């Protein structure tokens, strides 16, 4: 694997199979760098969701090595994995908002998991809801939110704890084109603050909306590299930004 010092994620010869079926991912090797914006593309069934599951530690690979934040997460003791997961924000394809919790409580979930006091979390959550335009729906239950609102609540939940990596699975799949662009702007704003963003999408038109993005393409479980995203040294200079402090006050976040 190349340059483990500066990378945030490294996959080396990773393969994944479910049960005794054939591999859905084969020989996947790549390196993700801090502060970059990646699109993961491919046709339906190409293995995008499986790869994202590996990225947010919902699945163990059948073979290969995965290193995140300098740790080999395959051999990492199970009780250390929650600490790694807290550094990763996930936007699920189906949002997975907790149905019995309000929008506020859903967004506050990662902060509560990390043990933040109720007093301290009130303002960041309120600011985040304002940022994604859901401040007026903070007490609403997920079933009363529109698809776009649910999407934004899911994104707010994914980024509220200021993760170092944001993984989003088809985040624009259920929204209209205008909302899709808005959501991408949110991801870009986060990326400008130093978060590494990985967005899985099969919508090729979306790729052009983020000019600085790098593209990884999956085809039948194999990874290709049309923009040199996986090459080291990278094809072009990566953005030079400082990683955000976990204590960055929420008022410094860009407004919608």
């Amino acid at each position: 694997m190349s340059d483990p010092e500066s990378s945030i994620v490294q996959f080396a010869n990773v393969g994944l199979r479910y049960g005794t079926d054939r591999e859905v991912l084969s020989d996947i090797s790549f390196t993700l760098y801090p502060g970059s914006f990646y699109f993961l593309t491919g046709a339906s069934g190409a293995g995008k969701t499986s790869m994202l599951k590996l990225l947010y530690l919902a699945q163990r690979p059948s073979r290969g090595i995965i290193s995140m934040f300098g740790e080999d997460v395959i051999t990492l003791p199970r009780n250390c994995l929650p600490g790694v997961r807290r550094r990763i924000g996930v936007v699920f394809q189906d949002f997975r908002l907790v149905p019995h919790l309000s929008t506020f409580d859903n967004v506050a979930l990662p902060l509560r998991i990390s043990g933040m006091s109720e007093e301290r979390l009130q303002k960041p959550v309120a600011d985040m809801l304002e940022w994604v335009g859901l401040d007026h729906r903070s007490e609403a239950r997920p079933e009363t939110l529109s698809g776009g609102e649910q999407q934004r609540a899911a994104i707010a939940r994914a980024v509220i704890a200021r993760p170092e990596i944001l993984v989003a699975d088809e985040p624009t799949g259920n929204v209209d084109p205008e909302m899709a662009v808005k959501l991408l702007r949110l991801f870009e704003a986060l990326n400008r603050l130093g978060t590494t963003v990985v967005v899985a999408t099969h919508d090729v038109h979306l790729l052009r909306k983020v000019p600085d993005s790098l593209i990884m393409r999956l085809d039948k479980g194999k990874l290709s590299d049309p923009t040199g995203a996986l090459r080291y040294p990278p094809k072009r200079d990566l953005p030079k930004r400082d990683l955000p402090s976990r204590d960055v006050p929420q008022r410094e976040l860009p407004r919608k």
Partner: protein
Amino acid sequence: MSTPSPIRRGAPRFGDSARLLQQARIAGPMPWVIAIMIALTVMAAAAGLALNNIAGSARDEIAGGITVQIVEGAPIERDRQAERAVSYFSNREDVASVRRVPDEELSALLAPWLGDVGAAEDDGVPIPALVDVRLSGPVTAQRLRNMRDELLAQAPAARIDAQASWLGPVFDAVRSLQFLAIGLIALLALTSAAAVWLAARSALGSNRETIEVIHHLGGTDGQIAGIFQRSIAWDAALGGAAGLLLGLAAVFMLGQQFAGLGSGLVAGGGLGPLDWLAIAAIPVIGIVLAVITARLTVIAALRRMI
């Protein structure tokens, strides 16, 4: 058993992990199942403790007691041998007390079965003389054999028996009942644990998606298990309190019934302060058992996730 979600909004918050997801206690059958289990356990424990007390007090009462019967048809010879027996025991240092049971007392004891004993004896039914002896220390077989040998030399019609031997079968029966009570308590504990296990698994199944989300957001097994533990602890506390009250009511009513019997044996079965303390501890033990079972069940299920 259908188990409503333990993960609901609007319930009290306890500790750090409770803030992950607000919860309400599990409604539905769980508190009632626990209440019935605790009530049955309280009754079984009270019965076991009462039997233990009955056996203990009877044992104390007859420890060191022996009965000497002079089975002699001729009244004069019977009296003579009885006097010799009283004299023999009075002269021994290991005898705490010796008393010849008066003929009137004997007649009164036998009257329910033989009618007027004086008249019966006149008709040729001999009534043995009885000597009640209390030894200092327990009656061992060797001790009894030595005394029998010595006494027969002076009173050939004497028959000597340890009082404890008469009640041996009763003690055996009491001991069997005690084992039965212990077995019942163990079975009830197992059944309660199984009910909690089923409830926890059912709750895990119905909340699987939410648990996965918490897991992916970095929630620890301990935090997730904590939600279920508190839920089940609250149920067990409610069920335990209700079960204790039900059980105590039943024990009190049964106690009144037995007290009405007026039997000397049953009178020794009253429950002491330590017994009541043990009974009061049953719901607490039930809560601990339920919480441990819920935790182990949830942790075991979570271990299957990476």
